[in-house]
């Protein structure tokens, strides 16, 4: 055996000469500023040519310390904090928290408010999935779906804004119900305000447009062979890995795990009266994750159409005391955020501020599997996998 000045080993034998060159891996920092990492995510990758030998995500660039901040805020103020966790689906973040506080206080929310919460949650789900369905092809190189889907998404944003006053951070939930729609001035103080006029028509129109977006995306993206070539068989997550890593939401359903918290957590929002299917797929590759979300948009459109026909009348908010004191106790409530399972573990010691709030965010667990799934992939495949997991850094870092 001879060394080739440290670059390899030469073996000479009767059968001939064999040379084994020692290659070196290159350390490549993908991020934190990068067009396709959904925010400030840094992936420290050791690459051998273009193949990834080792991948270590370095997160925390967006850590805002929400759990510590929540310990010095009243429950109403915390709602403003938490709808910035997963900023693409602003309204859906608040639902689990407010339901947790309501359950601790023993307050039964107003039925009308529950239905409105359901409608708004599904609208944010459609909005979130449209963002995904259009930015995922962008990472694979198709520039056009983004423009088309965002155009239809504007209608949903307009609807949410008309009801809540905010497009991304509605801050709309109150304990016992939802906030009476934006009104102002002293004369309207005694009049109970409700959803704006023409709300249901606007929602219908937004749903029609969303369905149009789905059809266009199906034509342009889902059936496209190049997208299928890039996404099928890429980034396969097995059923067992989903369970062990705590992956939830469409990512889990794409691997065959039939978990949908809208059906499991029955007390949270009134989904029982609504007829919809849980979409699952078997393969667990990037294309399945994409497909699950596209089909979920259609299911959510179905849900919204049924829901706006069955909103009960009544007050928008149940009677709650003016000063919100939550009795001592601890509770964990989770909801089906568009990205997965989002839950809040609240420890209350009586009083007006919580003792501890633990935020269980979906994307944190979802991307913890990256270091396992990425090994052996090419860099373009890594981008395809990451995009298909649909995470935002606010959700990862809190």
């Amino acid at each position, binding site marked *: 055996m001879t060394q080739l000045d440290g670059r390899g080993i030469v073996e000479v034998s009767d059968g001939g000469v064999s040379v084994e060159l020692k290659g070196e891996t290159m350390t490549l920092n993908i991020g934190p500023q990068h*067009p396709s990492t959904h925010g400030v995510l840094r992936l420290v990758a050791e690459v051998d040519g273009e193949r990834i030998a080792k991948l270590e995500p370095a997160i925390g660039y967006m850590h805002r310390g929400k759990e510590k901040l929540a310990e010095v805020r009243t429950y109403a103020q915390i709602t403003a904090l938490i709808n910035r966790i997963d900023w693409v689906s602003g309204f859906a973040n608040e639902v689990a928290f407010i339901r947790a506080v309501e359950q601790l206080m023993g307050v039964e929310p107003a039925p009308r408010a529950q239905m409105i919460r359901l409608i708004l949650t599904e609208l944010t789900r459609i909005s979130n999935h449209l963002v995904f369905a259009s930015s995922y092809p962008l990472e694979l*190189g198709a520039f056009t779906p983004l423009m088309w889907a965002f155009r239809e998404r504007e209608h949903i944003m307009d609807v949410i804004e008309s009801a809540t006053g905010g497009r991304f951070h509605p801050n709309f939930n109150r304990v016992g119900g939802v906030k009476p729609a934006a009104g102002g001035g002293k004369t309207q103080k005694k009049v109970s305000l409700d959803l704006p006029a023409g709300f249901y028509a606007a929602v219908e129109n937004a749903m029609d447009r969303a369905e149009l977006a789905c059809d266009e995306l199906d034509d342009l993206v889902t059936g*496209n062979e190049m997208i299928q070539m890039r996404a099928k068989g890429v980034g396969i997550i097995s059923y067992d890995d989903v369970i062990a890593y705590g992956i939830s939401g469409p990512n889990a359903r794409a691997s065959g795990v039939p978990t949908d918290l809208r059906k499991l957590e029955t007390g949270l929002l009134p989904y029982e009266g609504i007829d919809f299917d849980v979409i699952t797929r078997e393969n667990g590759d990037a294309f399945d994750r994409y497909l699950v979300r596209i089909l979920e948009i259609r299911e959510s459109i179905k849900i919204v159409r049924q829901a706006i026909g069955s909103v009960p009348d009544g007050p928008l908010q149940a009677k709650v005391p003016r000063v919100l004191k939550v009795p001592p106790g601890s509770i964990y409530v989770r909801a089906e955020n568009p990205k997965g399972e989002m839950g809040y573990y609240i420890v209350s010691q009586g009083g007006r501020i919580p003792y501890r709030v633990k935020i269980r965010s979906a994307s944190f667990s979802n991307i913890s599997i990256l270091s396992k799934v990425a090994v052996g992939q090419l860099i*373009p495949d890594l981008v395809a996998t990451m995009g298909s997991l649909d995470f935002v850094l606010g959700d990862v870092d809190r």
Partner: protein
Amino acid sequence: MIAFAVPFALWLTAKLLVALGLMLGVVLVVIWMELKWSAHIQSRVGPWYVGGRWGWAHPLAEALKFLQKEDLVPDDADDKVFRLAPYVMLAGTIATFVVIPIGPSVVARDLDIGIFYLLAVSSLSTLGVLMAGWSSGNKYSLIGGIRAGAQLIAYELPLVLALVAVAVQAGTLSLTGIVAAQATPLFHIGSTGISLPFVLSGQIIGFVVFIIASLAELNRTPFDLPMAESELTMGYVTEYSGLRFSMFFLGEYAGMVSMAAVVSTVYLGGYWLPGLSNDLLDWLGPFVLVGKIFFIVFLFIWFRWTWPRIREDQLQQLAWKWLIPLTLFNIVATATLKVVF
């Protein structure tokens, strides 16, 4: 053309400058076309304000913008190679315009080995890309440059083989000869001769393969992995700014125009349109050619904004497993048909 009693060198320089000027003009128009068409594909409007209606001066504004940007050379970069790379790439593309005929007797230099020269010179731009990727001192650029090198080398072959079939059918390597061959009648109906451009008279496979291969040579989607923004933050062009970046930019569009010109000349008949006499074509020829170039460029733009990009290894498989066998079959078929008929 009227022969001037001037030295050959001066005459040649003049012709080259005219060719360069024409090309730059066409390139600027093509940049505007890309901006506008991509906008309309994406339900946007595109350039609107610059220069009055329809934003026609937008490419000029962009060029001026690039000229006044700071000129950066990274510390880690290999200085001389870094500075030279964009010009090498641009030179390769511009040099192809020398042989493209824009009229029956209007061509910068009618070389007998037209196609051969074309292919040889257009691969200079590969060298420029590799130089850029290597010398930038940046890992992303390196990966982009190596990817580009592999891609360009792989797709040279289908390009060359497709043109071989054309040469077989035309019987000559010279581009003016190829256009003349397309202009000669294939068969007669009554007393009128029907001549067809090569795309319609047996080279359809070659046409499709050439379009695919030229998209890969130009690093355009669906083959734009070397400059894949969403992965490599601009690939081999990452470290370039200002004038040098605009050279790459220009080089990409000049390449597009030059490839479109080659396709138009070789497959679509170049400056020739059926029913026009040679005298008319002396004046109309350039416009006909430019019209065909715009059509091909439209195809290129349409493809870019509709499709995603495919991965490097899939790209290589496409080239080696599909395009090359197809072009070989095309050559054999062309030769057979040529002998039989």
